[in-house]
Structure formats: C-alpha cells, structure tokens
C-alpha cells in the first residue's frame, strides 16, 4: 500500500502508556518526500504521542507502540533507538522547546551534530548555514540559552535539530506561546528550508489556521484517531474544519466528534 514518493508511513499505530492507558487507537498517515504535512487536533488528541511514536522518544515515557508499524524510506524503523533515527535523518523538535539552558546558544546547536561522523569541516559549514537562516542566533551565539527569549529558544530548538542534517523534521507546536509575527517568521523559515533543501516536515499544531496555510496536506486527530484528512486547501474549505478548528463557525464550539455522531446517525436513518 506504499504510494510512490512516501518518505514516512505510519501504519495503524496503537500506543499504550503505562501498560494500560490506550492513547493512539490506530493512527495512519504519510509524509511525502519534501512535503509539509500538518497534524491537527485539540489538547490531548494525541499529536505529541504520534510524533514520539515516530521518533521513538516514547519509551522514555513508559509509552509503547503495541500495534502497527512505522516505515521511513520503505524500511521499518519502529524498533530503532532515537539516536539511530536521528542518524537516519528523522529528528524531533519537542513541544516546549527544551533548550539546554546552561549551554550557550552555539553549544546548543553543536549538540545537534552529536550523531554525525563527517568531521569538523562539515559541522562548521552547517553551523554557518543555520546562522544564515536564523541570523538572530548568530548575534546571540555566546549567550546562555536559558536567558534567550521564547522565540529565540524555538529557533535554537529548530536550528539544533537541523545540525543533524535531517531529511524529516517532526515539529511539535512551534507556535506555542509566541507572538503572531514571530510565529509567522518561524513558519516562513521552515518553508524556505523545505523549498530550498527539500526538508520534509511533519507539523503538529493546535493552530490550524497557520498550519493549513503552510502545509500541503493535513490530518485531523481526535481522541487518538484520524477523523479527517485531505489536501490543506480542501481542509481549509471544509465546513466542519472551518467551524471547529479555524474558528470561523457561527455557534459555540462543539467537538468534531459530535458532528460525526450526528452524521453517522443520519446515515443510519437513511
């Protein structure tokens, strides 16, 4: 069922935390080579869990993929360690940024190159490259990361991930807690990385508005299930998405599930 050009495929993945808490109930999605794909959903829908199931950071949180598989460039990767995945080109930028507070900005970026074996020259070149995309980080390169602003920390987190030379970056809520212009700036930079370097992006966002403007395709997650997916342009026009995720609807916000329920009943009656 592998479509041509699929860089990442998540097939029917189920995730259980602490051996009992079922959080993902069979999620499937795909990211094409060089694409930007949005994963949307409300708090607790399972966006972070999906990303961690891919990057395998789950295990450190007592989470486990109990069903399904993850394929990267056609190979099963769901048993690899996070370190192996980074080496193959899949890196996650965690929600809440998580910079190394006591390291300088530049040291933070350099930790991103830990898995690389191609010598100092290549790493130095990529460092300059990151500074080219984030000139603000260059100005602050010797500052302690803990004292930089929220926007700068998000840039550090993305820049740090770029230092591993990824093919696919898993971005978890880059917009969280940032002012609108800054969010715009960070998304613009991400898009230029995508266009100029073919970096594929899987973007988990609550902010559907901006995510659907930058992504090519989107999945909507609710309670651990994909309830809707389609090209971003189509999702933007979808009445339910407009109402529940883009805040364009008339009446008060309901859950997407209610709509489904209502539709299901209609179908049942028909």
């Amino acid at each position, binding site marked *: 069922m592998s479509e041509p050009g699929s860089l990442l495929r998540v097939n029917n993945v189920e995730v259980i935390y602490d051996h009992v808490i079922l959080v993902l109930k069979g999620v499937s999605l795909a990211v094409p080579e060089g694409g930007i794909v949005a994963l949307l959903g409300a708090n607790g829908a399972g966006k972070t869990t999906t990303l961690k199931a891919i990057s395998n950071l789950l295990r450190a949180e007592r989470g486990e993929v109990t069903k399904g598989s993850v394929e990267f460039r056609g190979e099963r990767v769901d048993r690899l360690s996070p370190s192996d995945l980074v080496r193959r080109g899949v890196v996650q*930028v965690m929600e809440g940024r998580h910079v190394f507070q006591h390291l300088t900005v530049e040291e933070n970026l350099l930790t991103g190159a830990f898995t690389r074996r191609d010598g100092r020259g290549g790493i130095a070149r990529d460092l300059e490259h990151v500074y080219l995309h984030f000139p603000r980080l260059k100005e602050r390169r010797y500052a302690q990361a803990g004292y930089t602003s929220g926007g700068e920390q998000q840039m550090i987190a993305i820049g740090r991930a770029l230092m591993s030379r990824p093919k696919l970056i898993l971005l978890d809520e880059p917009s969280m807690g940032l002012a609108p212009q800054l969010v715009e700036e960070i998304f613009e930079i991400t898009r230029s990385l995508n266009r100029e370097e073919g970096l594929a992006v899987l973007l988990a966002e609550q902010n559907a508005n901006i995510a659907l403007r930058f992504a090519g395709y989107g999945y909507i997650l609710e309670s651990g299930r994909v309830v809707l997916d389609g090209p971003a342009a189509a999702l933007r026009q979808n009445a339910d998405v407009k109402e529940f995720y883009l805040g364009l609807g008339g009446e008060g916000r309901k859950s997407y599930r209610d709509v489904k329920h209502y539709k299901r009943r209609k179908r049942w009656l028909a």
Partner: protein
Amino acid sequence: MHILYAILIGPFVTMAREPAFLIEVLIGGLLAGVMYSLVALGFVLIYKASGVFNYAQGTMVLFAALTFVGMLEAGLPVLLSLIAVIAVMIVLAFAVERVVLRPLVNQSEIILFMSTLGISYFLVGLGQILWGGDVHPLDIGIPSGPLTVHGILINQLDLYAAIVAGTLVVALALFFQKTRVGRALRAVADDHQAAMSVGIPLKQIWVVTWAIAGLVALAAGIMWGASLGVQFSLALVALKALPVLILGGFTSIPGAIVGGLIVGAAEKLGEVFWGPVIGSGVEDWFAYILALIFLLFRPQGLFGERIIERV
C-alpha cells in the same frame, strides 16, 4: 564566663599569636580537603548525568584502591597496575549501566538510590573475596616526610595528592567544556529528554559518566591509601563527602571542589584550636555541624545550580 572565653575568644588569640602555625594548619587542612573534593566530585558527576545519588561512590574508592594494591602485590609494575585498574573501573561502568541502570530506567530516584546500596555491598564483598580483609600498605614512591617552605611544614604526600587532584579537575573541566562528548554530558545533565531528541544516546553517556567517576575514585583511593593504608574504612570517606555536597550543592562541580576545601580546612582548624577546649575528635563531627548550619540557612548549598527563570 571562663568557658565562653575559652571557646569564643581563646582560640583566635592563639591563632594571632602564632600566624605561622595557623598557616601550617590551614594548608594541611586545605590539602586534606582536596581529597574530599575528589570524592564529592564523583558524586556530583553521576548525580548530574543520571539523577542517581550514588551511595557506592565511597566503595568505589575502596574497590579501586584494593584492586590497585592487589595488582602491585601480585608483582605487576606500577604503571601496568594503574592501566589495569583503569580498565577494571571502565568495565565496572559498563556493568553498572547494563545490569543496574538500564533495567531500572524510568524508576524513581529512591529505587535508583537503593540499587546503588546494592552496588556498594557487592563491591565490598567482591573486594574482600579477591583481596582479603587486611590492611594493605600502599607505597607509590612518594616520600612521606614533611617539606619545609619558609619555615612552614607541609606534608609531602598531601601536596602530591593535591597536585594530582588539581590536574584531574583541570583535565575534567577541559573535557567538559571543549569536547563533543563533554558537551553531550552537560546537555544530558541539563535536559535528558532533549538530549535524546537530538540523538545523544543516554546509555553511552551513563557509561562515560560512571567511568569518569570510577577514575576519580581511583585517584582518591590511591592517594588516601598511600597515607592511611588501604583498608575497609576507606569506604567511609564517602560519609565525609556528604557534608561537602551539602555545602557545595549537589549539582555543582565548582561547589564540590570549594566545599571540599572548606570542610578540610575547617575541621583541621577546629581540631587544632578548639580541640584542647572541647575535647579532641572535633575532626570527626565538625563537618556535619557545618553541614547542618548550611541546611538551616542555605539549603541549596554555596553553588547549588541556579534554576534559570526568565521573566
């Protein structure tokens, strides 16, 4: 009245009257303190990198010294013995990661702490089986007589110990600041989840940390063994590291170093100048009183790492 004078003022009068003697005691104390710093440093390294309070640090000092002596007694030359013990400590680090840390990943701090109690008993037992329970004299060729500098007596062994410890500390500082692995160690200490997310393998980092802690223990064990003989009471050195940690803060490398120096100097001064008044043996408990005072007034220690909070 008289007793108050003897405690509060008398000792200072004695100090002022004999400044050369005061300096001598102070230097002796600082040099002894370097050893405390070294043991405390082992604790801090492991605590920072893996959040484990390693009760076995003291036993590692003993085990390293015992193994070293054992090899010397078996007729190996000094350098070869040293290399062999270093290898043993590295193997120990791998074993700890594989047998203890890896299966216990995600467990609470107290469980990890208890597992280090287990490591401690295991090492004591192993040491005893391999090398017996006697006191082994350790002669590494450092002359033990005192040295006179400007009329001040300095114990040569203490001096050598301080030089070795100082070199080790500088080497470690360079390693942490300047190398790829050192940077990764600091990253893990800061935020282990983020470190994993950029592909730093925690297991490797734990092995490196325990190996470094093992080397630090070895240095402390050899120096201490050379002055006291290698015996099971060496493991108790770890108990002295506890007040050092409270003084310096559990997460601070400079704190461990400065804390050790303070404790070393303070207890020597206490012993020499207050001992005659309140009875000797001050050296044995003074550090704990100092730690207690710190717990009351500055529980994060002198250098307890500041939590960065931006507003």
